[in-house]
C-alpha cells in the first residue's frame, strides 16, 4: 500500500497548532471533515474512538512518530492524514520522545488487512532516517506531499 492510497494531499496539516495529544488528534480529524473525507456528524464519534484507543496504550511508536487510529463503521475505505508539529507533542511514547510526525488512520471495521498494510508502509518508510528528517523539516503541505510521493516511488527504501 502507498501513501497516495490513503492520504489526500489537501488534508495534510503541515504545522499543527495544538500542543497536546487530544488537540492534535482533534485537529487532524477536523481536517478530514473539512476536506470531505469523513462526515461532519461523525467527528465526535471518531475523535472519541481514537482517544479510547490511545487509552489502551499510546500509539507513539518511537522516532518522534505516532499513529493514532481507530476502526469506524462510517468509513468504507481506509482514510488517513499526516500532521507535523515542529515543537513536538507529548504522546506518552514508549521511548519518551516527543512526537513530531502524526499519521492518523480511520479504517472500516471489516478490513484488518488494509490497516496492517498501511502500518507496514509507514513503518517501512520510517526505517529511513532521511524520510523522517525530510518530513519533520517540511514547512508546507506541498513539501509533505512531495516526500510522501517520493516514498511511494521507493526513493527512501528499496
Amino acid at each position, binding site marked *: 500500500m502507498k501513501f497516495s492510497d490513503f492520504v489526500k494531499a489537501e488534508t495534510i496539516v503541515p504545522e499543527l497548532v495544538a500542543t497536546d495529544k487530544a488537540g492534535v488528534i482533534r485537529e487532524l480529524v477536523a481536517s478530514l471533515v473539512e476536506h470531505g473525507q469523513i462526515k461532519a456528524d*461523525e467527528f465526535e*464519534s*471518531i475523535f*472519541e*474512538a481514537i482517544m*479510547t*484507543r490511545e487509552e*489502551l*496504550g499510546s*500509539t507513539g*511508536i*518511537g*522516532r518522534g512518530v505516532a*499513529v493514532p*487510529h*481507530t*476502526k*469506524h*463503521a*462510517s468509513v468504507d475505505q481506509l482514510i488517513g492524514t499526516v500532521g507535523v508539529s515542529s515543537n513536538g507533542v507529548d504522546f506518552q511514547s*514508549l521511548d519518551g520522545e516527543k512526537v513530531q510526525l502524526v499519521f492518523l488512520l480511520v479504517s472500516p*471495521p471489516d478490513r*484488518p*488487512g488494509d*490497516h*496492517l*498494510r498501511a*502500518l*507496514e508502509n*509507514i*513503518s*517501512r518508510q*520510517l*526505517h529511513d532516517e532521511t524520510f523522517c528528517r525530510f518530513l519533520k523539516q517540511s514547512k508546507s503541505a506541498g513539501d509533505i506531499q512531495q516526500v510522501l510521493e517520493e516514498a511511494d516511488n521507493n526513493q527512501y527504501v528499496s
Partner: protein
Amino acid sequence: MPETQCSRTVRLVNAQGFHLRPAKLFVELASKFGSTIEVIKDDVRIDGKSILSILTLAAPQGALLSLVAQGADAQAAVDALATLIESGFDEAQVVYPASE
C-alpha cells in the same frame, strides 16, 4: 550460562493480525530477555525487539511466524513469546467503538 539458540514456529491466531498493540506487547515481552530475538515470516527476518520492524511484517491472522532466540535465556524467551502469540494477545477482550 551457555549461549543457546532456540526456535519455534507459531501461527498468529488473533483476527486483527500483528497490528500495533500486539507488536508493542510482543516487544515489551521480548525486551525482558537478554537473548537476541528475531521473527521470520516467509523470507523476511526482522529484529523482534523493534516495533517498527514487526509492523513491516504486516502479518495477518493465520500467518506462520518463526521465532529465533539466541542467548542464555533463549529457551525461556521463545516459550514466553510463543505463548503470547498463541494467546491471541487477549484481543477478544478489546472492544472497538463503532458508529451506530
